[in-house]
């Protein structure tokens, strides 16, 4: 039974066997790495779509729904990644992350606030002592097309300014043209530059074309030391989808069973409604189990999702549909 109560009986919960000693494999050279990637089995796209469709029919009601909404709220990385971001906007976002619904102090705080590196210091100042982490995108977000030295400087600056989590992008061009060793080395170098900060690796699945590539990129990132794998930047037309989510969750599950390392998953972009969010939680519970139903291992990168969750939460409490203006915009 997941302690979050998303399943009604213990038999429904997926239990995975994770070795107690963590051991990530080493690769001597790119040839070995490529061989390991080639050894991954293919993704059955039809099967994945079918399973996602099937799980989407599960619905959560009443008290279970209420708890699921709170879990989802606690997993949100409240994000603002616009060219027009200002310190003022970051301040209001931080206030919202700390106390999403000022009328109801029992509302859980967000997991993190995600900003550009130059605004990390502002976010840090507003979040001190709140338990809400500061996440920063880095490595020439969103394209990832800059020399490695520039990327590393970007990361170092964000960490220096106080970021707890770094969201890096992989070089999709390198990955798609088969230079997997370069992508691997980039991640290893960025991981080192992160020091104590957690590293989320953005695969930008909307640009990876096939589900096989999503799976390969997931394993590649995990082998290279990612703490989280993340779907998207939110800057291309295709963002997080349940299909991609399932493939990544299965990769994380298999990786945990093989190496003992627990890697988190972050779904980013395009998730706007409570219904979508709860479907992802069902997907998580059924694929990797209740252990992942925690902000330490699963996140939503979103901003508009929060207001819908708050509206649904309030609706469950007062029994009437609420006015969207009850909650601050962003």
């Amino acid at each position, binding site marked *: 039974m997941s302690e979050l109560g998303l399943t009604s009986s213990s038999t429904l919960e997926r239990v995975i066997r994770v070795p107690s000693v963590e051991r990530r494999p080493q690769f001597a050279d790119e040839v070995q790495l490529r061989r390991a990637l080639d050894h991954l089995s293919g993704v059955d796209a039809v099967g994945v779509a079918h399973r996602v469709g099937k799980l989407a029919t599960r619905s959560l009601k009443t008290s279970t729904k209420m708890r699921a909404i709170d879990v989802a709220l606690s997993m949100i990385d409240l994000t603002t990644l616009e060219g027009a971001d200002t310190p003022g906007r970051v301040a209001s976002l931080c206030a919202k992350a700390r106390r999403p619904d000022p009328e109801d102090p029992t509302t859980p705080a967000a997991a993190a606030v995600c900003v550009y590196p130059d605004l990390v210091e502002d976010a840090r100042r507003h979040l001190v002592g709140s338990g809400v982490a500061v996440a920063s995108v880095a490595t020439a977000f969103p394209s990832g097309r800059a020399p490695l030295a520039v990327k590393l400087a970007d990361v170092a600056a964000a960490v220096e300014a106080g970021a707890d989590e770094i969201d890096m992008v992989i070089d999709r061009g390198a990955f798609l043209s088969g230079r997997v060793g370069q992508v691997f080395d980039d991640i290893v170098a960025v991981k080192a530059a992160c020091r104590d900060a957690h590293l989320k690796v953005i695969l930008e699945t909307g640009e990876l074309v096939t589900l096989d590539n999503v799976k390969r990129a997931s394993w590649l990132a995990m082998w290279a030391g990612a703490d989280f794998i993340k779907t998207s930047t939110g800057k291309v037309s295709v963002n997080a989808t349940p299909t991609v989510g399932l493939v990544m969750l299965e990769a994380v599950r298999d990786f945990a069973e093989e190496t003992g390392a627990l890697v988190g998953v972050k779904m980013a972009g395009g998730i706007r409604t409570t219904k979508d969010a709860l479907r992802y939680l069902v997907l998580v519970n059924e694929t990797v189990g209740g252990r992942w139903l925690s902000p330490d291992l699963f996140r939503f990168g979103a901003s508009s999702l929060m207001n819908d969750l708050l509206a649904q939460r309030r609706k469950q409490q007062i029994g*009437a*549909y609420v006015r969207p203006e009850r909650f601050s915009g962003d």
Partner: protein
Amino acid sequence: MSERLDVKKTYKLLIKGQFPRSESGRTYEVLDARGAFLANVARASRKDVREAVLAARGAQPGWSAASAYLKGQILYRWAEMAESRRRDLADLVISPETHDAERDVAEAIDRLVWYAGWTDKVAQVYGGANPVAGPYFNFSLPRPCGVVASFAPPSGSLVGWVDSVAAALCTGNTVLSLLSPSRPLAAFALAELTATSDLPPGVLNVLTGDPGELGEVIARHEDVDGLDLTGGDERGADLAEWAADSLKRTYRPHEGDDPTRRLRAFIDTTTVWHTVGY
């Protein structure tokens, strides 16, 4: 040639310019004055109410910003569409024997034209330039309340239904209308004609179902700004009380009402000042 089978129409809902079945999949039977079967009608659920309010809210800024002239043209076009379907509509008016269905339809259409004419007069009649003791102008401007929900009169009168939606529409509100549960057919057929009248999707949304079930959901929905209780019946007081929680405007008709009282029911007045000469 073999005898034709009946092609019976199932009435659905009107939400955001589309005609979906109820999300719940439920229907109920509507009978004529003698108790014979007429049609299957969708029985809306609270989720349909939620969708309808979302649609009305989404359409609000556009409809309220549309010029008075355009709103008038669209409502008049609706009347034109109804005019060519007068006989069909009259066939659907379920009424006691003595009631004249054709006259009801004709009056309903005339009433639509009347409301169409009001669109560009509301600001003139209910707004004004206020005298002030200073070198500036001061104007009062009627603005729509927002989303108005209306309960159609249970008698099934088409005139009564037109009153309950067109008054709010012509002042720039978007509307969610719950039809008379026992006599919804004529009103729904008239509402269907908005699909060919250039009325933007979501401006008028129509539900059929049990007012006992949906009344509270509608009245307590925070994102509804006004409530027309014409068909509220004896539950009117409860509905008004629920509406008070979210400070909705409510309108209840009185005997011998001035017909313009309805027009004023869902208007907010904003007062603005402006310097002279610039």
